[in-house]
């Protein structure tokens, strides 16, 4: 699903240049649940930005579902993001003046899906994350865990190839974190490919594979025995 070869990225900081990614190679198969771990500054966020087509690499290859991702202009990147990727952010990033259902329907709007179908799909995915009854509520009326579940429903609504979650539990307490991870595991069980960036070992242990980044290179890449989150819920 994802193939990355010899990916490099550096940022210019004044006269210095900061080499953040120093040749990353890794592949993700369909249906995997991968944790990308690393301390801050390890380059994990940069890697996720490049995977999410939010940032460009300096050199290297990136293929997503067989499509080479390179030389993207803003419009093309937007289309690809919409078609291939679902985003889950640490701070949820729901649009605060839109109801839960409207938030979930937003990526579908950009896919030019009809109004009725949009509404149906939004409700379907809200149902999937257990928030059907909260469809008409504004984000300000939801708890942190509920907001993240709405965000996950939004990421799912566009039926992406890959779900990218950047510290999805970073702003949540541990019980809520496990609830969210339980949801992510269930979505993965259904066959979705998910990448989770985290620095919490217990969250990483709930994935099926851990990729460890340090100073811009992968230092460890191992398959693990998944810890199910539902036992903590």
């Amino acid at each position: 699903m994802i193939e990355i070869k010899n990916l490099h990225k550096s940022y210019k900081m004044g006269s210095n240049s900061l080499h953040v990614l120093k040749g990353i190679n890794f592949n993700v198969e369909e249906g995997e649940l991968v944790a990308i771990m690393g301390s801050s500054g390890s380059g994990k966020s940069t890697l996720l930005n490049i995977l999410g087509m939010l940032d460009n690499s300096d050199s290297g290859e990136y293929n997503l579902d067989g499509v080479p991702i390179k030389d993207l202009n803003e419009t093309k990147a937007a289309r690809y993001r919409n078609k291939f990727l679902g985003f889950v952010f640490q701070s949820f990033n729901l649009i605060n003046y839109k109801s839960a259902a409207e938030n979930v329907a937003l990526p579908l709007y950009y896919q030019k899906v009809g109004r009725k179908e949009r509404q149906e799909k939004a409700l379907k995915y809200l149902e999937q994350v257990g928030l059907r009854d909260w469809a008409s509520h504004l984000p300000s009326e939801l708890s942190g865990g509920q907001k993240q579940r709405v965000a996950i429903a939004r990421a799912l609504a566009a039926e992406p190839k890959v779900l990218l979650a950047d510290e999805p539990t970073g702003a949540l307490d541990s019980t809520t974190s496990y609830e969210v991870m339980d949801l992510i595991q269930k979505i993965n069980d259904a066959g979705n490919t998910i990448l989770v960036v985290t620095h919490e070992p217990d969250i990483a242990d709930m994935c099926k594979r851990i990729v460890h980044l340090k100073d811009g290179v992968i230092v460890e890449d191992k398959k693990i025995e998944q810890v199910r989150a539902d036992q903590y819920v």
Partner: protein
Amino acid sequence: MWIFDRDLWSEIFNTLGKNMLRTILTMLGVIFAMIILMLLLGSANGMSNGFDKLFAGTASNSLFVWSQRTSEPYKGFERGRRISFKLEDAGIIKKQVSEIEVLAPRIELGSHRNVVTVYRKGRKSGSSVYGDYPEIDNITKKKLIAGRFLNNNDIESSKKVCVIGEETVKFLFDKGESAIGEDIRINGVFFTVVGVYKPNNNINIDGKNAVFIPFTTFQKAFNSGDRLGWMAIAVKEDVKVPVVEEKIKKILKAKYDIHPNDPRAIGSFDMSEIFNNISSFTMVLKGVSFFVGIFTLLAGVIAISNILLITVKERTKEIGVRRALGATPRIVKRQILLEAIVLTTFAGLIGFAISVGALVGIGALAEGSEAPFVNPMVSIVQFGASFLLMIFLSVLIGLLPANRAIKIKPIEALREE
């Protein structure tokens, strides 16, 4: 077509509607600007209408010519000779100057501006008494409140009839008494009243207290022979009055042996000059109000742009999220631009509605007053032009925040504060 896309509009109205306070504050500038523009234009129109009403009933392209004393010696005549026009002059001029539409000779009893005593059953009134042709009504229109004006039949048979002013009726008749058919006496001659006129609320050359009798009757009754007081002339529409004025004077100067450069011998009054002065005054007034209003509008639209710029900054995260979810730069740009246009349009319409209300109110207040201020309202064309200009400006100025918005990278949505 995207313009009919219901989703696009609901997205825009949603965004604006859910941020009501921000929306209203943004619109205030344009609302006020529109009110100022419309009030200025409306008032200028009201003033222009007021002047029009003032002049209503007087042909704007009219001219009055009368005789005076010469001021230059010529052909053996000394200066200071009194010139007196004859009735035949009217015919000569009418024939020779083709630009004349109407020519009405007139004679006044007594000397000019002096009143004559008019009697009826022991009552009297100091009135001006004129010998007139019916054509005079085309130059200084009178509003008849009873009976009729003089007609050709009166002239042909030199009927002893008269049309009198409202004020004259007040002096000669009891309240509620009908003047029509009654006789009044002027210099020992009786005339039957056939009409009563009311002065228009405008420039009135004849005054309120006057008696009009047929020219031919005047000649016989007061023995004026072929003398002529003055000539009231209306020129054809596409002709300039001063040109005709010159032609007429030239003919008359030749006829009465007046020095060609004598400025005094023939007096004249060009009504169109006053009209032109006033209409250029109102034109300038309209121009200035439009100018001032447009700049106010520009300021209002800039205010919208300014606030949208701030909101774009405020909405960085939201726009970033939208971008991450698949909104292309074009969609984002279109949304911000349309928000600017919708805001301006709504604000413009609200301002327009308020100012129309205000203008109606001002018009009602001015109704009773003497001020030359009538029906202050903007024309459809003026409104349409201002409105289109406003939308054009809003598009132009909406581009600023819209371009700012598309510079926002989706990555900024991911960045944690």
